[in-house]
């Protein structure tokens, strides 16, 4: 697909307004972009794990989804969609279903990195023809900003609060994208909203959707409420996450790493941290070493990724 902003905009809207996500939420931006990568004539079955996206997009008797949608529980979006995909294979063979269907599961980081990891791993290993999309906002936002294994080091959440002796979450975030790469599936990518036309995201979504076999997308989806920033700053914050190399953009196609975006100038991570209230305590006098630790870990991971991508 040659990215064409006009042609893509002319495609039908598959996720309507009237959903009840927070103002400025990153998740529906990701959903709209990913569904836009579907060929207009193709249909989708979308599964969503319990979480913000699910409880806000499908509230009886309303649904924001123009394609078929299913939610069953928190930890099993992958298994649920795997079942639907298996049904499609057999019903198609029997001539009971016409047309092309694509299968997409969405989960937040809680439903993907944590409680849903087993279900995700199983579905990927079995090779279902589906795309699993994690919209990673770095905490359990639906229940009120509790830490997940995707929460960054020293972030302040309601279950990793910063206090007199602890500076927030004490562990670095799990690198789920690498875990998915280790599954040996044909397509894995990490992406974010770095440009307002969402080119990187839409192109990766298209590759994921039209790859034969399982694919995984990890999309950084800022949460103004949980991260504590002005709702209008969605793209700016996403861009800072990428330009500081906190959230590098890359893809792994059949095991081959490729860096899809290299910042012209790698910014210090502090530029990303200072935009958000969840890191505010790090800027108190005497906490400089905490930011330094974050910088060191970001650098270490970035260097490793550059090597994997053959950029060094």
């Amino acid at each position, binding site marked *: 697909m040659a990215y064409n902003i006009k042609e893509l905009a002319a495609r039908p809207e598959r996720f309507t307004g009237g959903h009840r996500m927070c103002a400025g939420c990153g998740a529906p931006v990701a959903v709209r972009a990913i569904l836009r990568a579907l060929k207009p004539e193709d249909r989708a079955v979308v599964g969503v794990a319990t979480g913000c996206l699910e409880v806000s997009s499908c509230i009886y008797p309303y649904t924001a989804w123009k394609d078929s949608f299913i939610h069953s529980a928190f930890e099993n979006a992958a298994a649920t969609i795997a079942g639907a995909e298996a049904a499609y294979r*057999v019903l198609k063979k029997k001539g009971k279903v016409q047309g092309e269907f694509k299968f997409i599961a969405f989960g937040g980081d809680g439903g993907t990195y944590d409680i849903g990891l087993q279900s995700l791993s199983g579905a990927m290993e079995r090779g279902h023809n589906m795309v699993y999309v994690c919209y990673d906002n770095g905490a359990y936002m639906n229940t009120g900003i509790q830490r997940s294994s995707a929460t960054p080091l020293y972030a302040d959440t309601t279950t990793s609060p910063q206090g007199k002796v602890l500076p927030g979450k004490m562990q670095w975030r799990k690198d789920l994208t690498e875990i998915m790469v280790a599954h040996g599936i044909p397509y894995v990518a990490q992406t974010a909203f770095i440009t307002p036309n969402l080119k990187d995201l839409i192109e990766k979504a298209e590759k994921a959707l039209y790859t034969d076999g399982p694919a995984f997308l990890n999309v950084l989806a800022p949460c103004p409420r949980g991260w504590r920033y002005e709702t209008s700053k969605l793209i700016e914050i996403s861009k800072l996450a990428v330009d500081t190399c906190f959230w590098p953009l890359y893809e792994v196609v059949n095991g081959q790493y490729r860096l899809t975006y290299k910042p012209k100038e790698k910014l210090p991570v502090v530029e990303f941290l200072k935009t958000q209230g969840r890191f505010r305590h790090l800027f108190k006098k005497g906490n400089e070493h905490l930011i330094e630790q974050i910088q060191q870990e970001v650098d270490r991971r970035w260097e490793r990724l550059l090597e994997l991508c053959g950029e060094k």
Partner: protein
Amino acid sequence: MAIRDRLSGNEAIAYAMRQINPDVVAAFPITPSTEVPQYFSQFVANGEVDTEFIAVESEHSAMSACIGASAAGARTMTATSSQGLALMWEMLYIAASMRLPIVMAVINRALSGPINIHNDHSDSMGARDSGWIQIYCENNQEAYDSLIQAIRIAEHKDVRLPVMVCYDGFITSHAVENIELLEDEVVRNFIGEYNPEYYLLNEQNPISMGPLDLPPYYFEHKRQQAEAMRNAKKVVLEVADEFAKISGRKYGLFETYKLDDAEVAIVVMNSTAGTAKAVVDEYRSKGYKVGLLKPRLFRPFPVEEIVNALKHLKAIAVMDKTDSFNAAGGPLFTEVTSALYGRADGIKVINYIYGLGGRDVKTDDIAKIYDRLLDIVKTGNVGEVYNYIGVRE
């Protein structure tokens, strides 16, 4: 023409599944149900079925995949036992509330802990209020026949609920016994095509399933579910009537054995009911008016019909192969006594917890219970209501 054969319970269930030829089977191995997906995957490997078999990574995912497949419009089946059923727990309720006609063989096994692989009913009894229809089977023949009927019951437009077909682990699942099988085509014609009204893969009418259902609507959806369960009783009988025409075997909501003129009776489910029948014969030959009632349909519980069958009795012993830990009696006992209350008061009813964790149930054990019932009738003295048999006191 019926096919005379000898099969274990698990072989019979797998055989029925081959004949049903479901669209999707998602399953995970667990003793003693493992053989079912094992035999079935051989049918898949041999091309004897069209099924997509999903060898999932857990029972939670087994039921989740079944939900996804069934919602997508596929005829969907699975099998499990014990911890597997327990791990499915959350999804059992969701399958039922989504009104998905999934059919599952539950090969009854004790729940941990401590871990035990042998038979009792603590697994399926724990799931009795999950919204699944539950059918209990005495032997391989009933398991085979009920699994085929379960497809029709589950998919009936007035029901649309998942069904568990339960039979005893090892005792029924692994014992080889005589069985009469139906021909493939007879089964195929009996179950017919599955044509759901709403399904995800309907390209003309996309739907959303599993919404957030807030206070203005949730209760109404639960009321619908309750209605479906009420309708199930009628449908179970209709399907049984039709099944009798193709098989010559007549099923009801429960089976009675020498109950009509009995004064005392045991109420017991699954394989132990068969053992009890032998004791009934022995006692009848000695002139005692003893009988038996074996519930088949436990969910929904056929209250009026069971009361009508029991109301002439003087004393009843209800046997539960699980303990409720309510310090008052097992689940079957609670159902039977609550059914009798206000409808047939005055009957003396006692409860025996038996056979936990595969403790073998001998004819002698059952004879002791009949003796006790006869004694209650003679003396009018009920004594302890909540009892154990077969445990070392």
